[in-house]
């Protein structure tokens, strides 16, 4: 049984303690952060949103009725937080990176760069899709959510999810072909 399955007992509880919060972050933290990143396309925002998601989950655990899986519930909190953040009139300056001290000199830049090229191209293609298309694709493929779960999370019909999936796949195919030219 994986750590996510083990935590399903929480669905029968009214509140969680800090140990359970820690376990919840361990089990779902990466997924939540990646999902937030897929929505916002912004690392720092995604980091903040992921942390905020678990704080809200901890404080508002009583509102979790167990109708959905813990993961879908956390994703819905993250999604609301991300959309609120993007709607905010104030867009904070986001620090993308700071260089840290050198690891060492002498690697072949060309080799390292080319090795990552393929993944980069897929990422670029995917992140250039509209949020609606990008979201269903990642929820389905990366996070393994079912069509009904995605529909519930996005508050749309399953038919809409299927339609978006179809369009997302077509768009990805198109972009991949453009990149190969």
């Amino acid at each position: 049984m994986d750590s996510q399955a083990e935590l399903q007992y929480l669905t029968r509880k009214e509140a969680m303690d800090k140990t359970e919060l820690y376990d919840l972050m361990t089990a779902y933290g990466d997924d939540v952060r990646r999902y937030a990143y897929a929505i916002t396309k912004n690392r720092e925002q995604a980091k903040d949103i992921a942390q905020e998601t678990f704080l809200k989950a901890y404080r508002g655990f009583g509102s979790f009725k167990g109708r959905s899986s813990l993961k879908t519930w956390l994703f819905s909190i993250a999604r609301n937080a991300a959309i609120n953040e993007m709607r905010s009139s104030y867009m904070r300056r986001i620090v993308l990176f700071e260089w840290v001290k050198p690891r060492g000199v002498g690697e072949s830049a060309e080799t390292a760069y080319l090795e990552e090229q393929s993944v980069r191209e897929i990422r670029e293609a995917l992140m250039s899709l509209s949020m609606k298309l990008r979201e269903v694709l990642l929820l389905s493929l990366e996070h393994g959510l079912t069509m009904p779960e995605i529909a519930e999370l996005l508050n749309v019909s399953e038919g809409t999810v299927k339609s978006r999936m179809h369009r997302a796949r077509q768009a990805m195919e198109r972009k991949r072909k453009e990149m190969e030219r």
Partner: protein
Amino acid sequence: MSESASVWEERVKQGLFREEKFTDEMKKTVLQSADRRPRWRLAKGIGIVGALAICAAAFLLLANLTGGDADSYRTAGETGKRIPLAYKPLEARILQKGETIYGGDRGILPGLSNTHSPLVNTGYAERISLSDVDLIEQKEVPGFGTAFLYTLKEGTVLKDSIATKHESFGMAIDGVSPAGTLYHYGTGHMYELQTSMTRLFGQEVLKFNQPLCRTDGEGCAWYVKKDANGLSTYATFSSLTYERDLDGDGSEEAIVVTHKQNQIYIFKEDRGALQWVSVREALGAVAEDAVAYDELLGTFELHGSEADGSGFTRTYRYGEDNKLVEVVK
């Protein structure tokens, strides 16, 4: 499903963002914040605003210790007051490619260390082959490309500048850079720089920010942009800067904050020319007053003292028709 579809779908299933981890540090922050309410979300913003507030407080304390002149307290900023901002054309030369900045050059505005117009015209960065560099580190910049930190290999010859052994910085730009090449931006280790994507004067730009970079205590910010021809410097400021569309016209102004003379300038761009206004001057601040910009709220603050010695803080938002409007609390 086509073969290529199965390849990319398989890659997505494996996770495209594996570096996005919920780290132990993040868990610790959440656990520490779990029993505190609420304000956790604003921690970063408070830090920035707090820093400005501390500067202002220090400024006031210094003013009080040195004894202010009661007659000099001005009356600007009555409740609900609207203060028009009179923008002026910036009279400063635009730095051209190959031109040198000399130490003796004077600043273009009081307190601002720029010796030329913040807009520059220094051309495009030279494109070189990745095989010419020894890579130290690379970072993806979503929406822009890949940033590289490297040293040039011995024997590399550059057309536009002298090749050195020092660490250099360059970028490959998505959709522009031919495979296996990068734009050699220049020499510098870049270790303490904050890098962010932002918008300035209606342009999408990559910003490099160094809060403290000058011997006079000022920070530095420079903005680079990409187009079909490559990578170029768009603007530079010898001070802290913020970008915000204050007047809602779709073009982001530069809010420039200096330590020297505690100035806040707003710069607008119009068809390649800059206009500026001093917030300090507009608010009628006197020597004992301090002005501050709240990055989080996009408001301006005037900190001062009344004739009886009590302190005040007046807050202004940017209103219609380029006016500062006092916020009545």
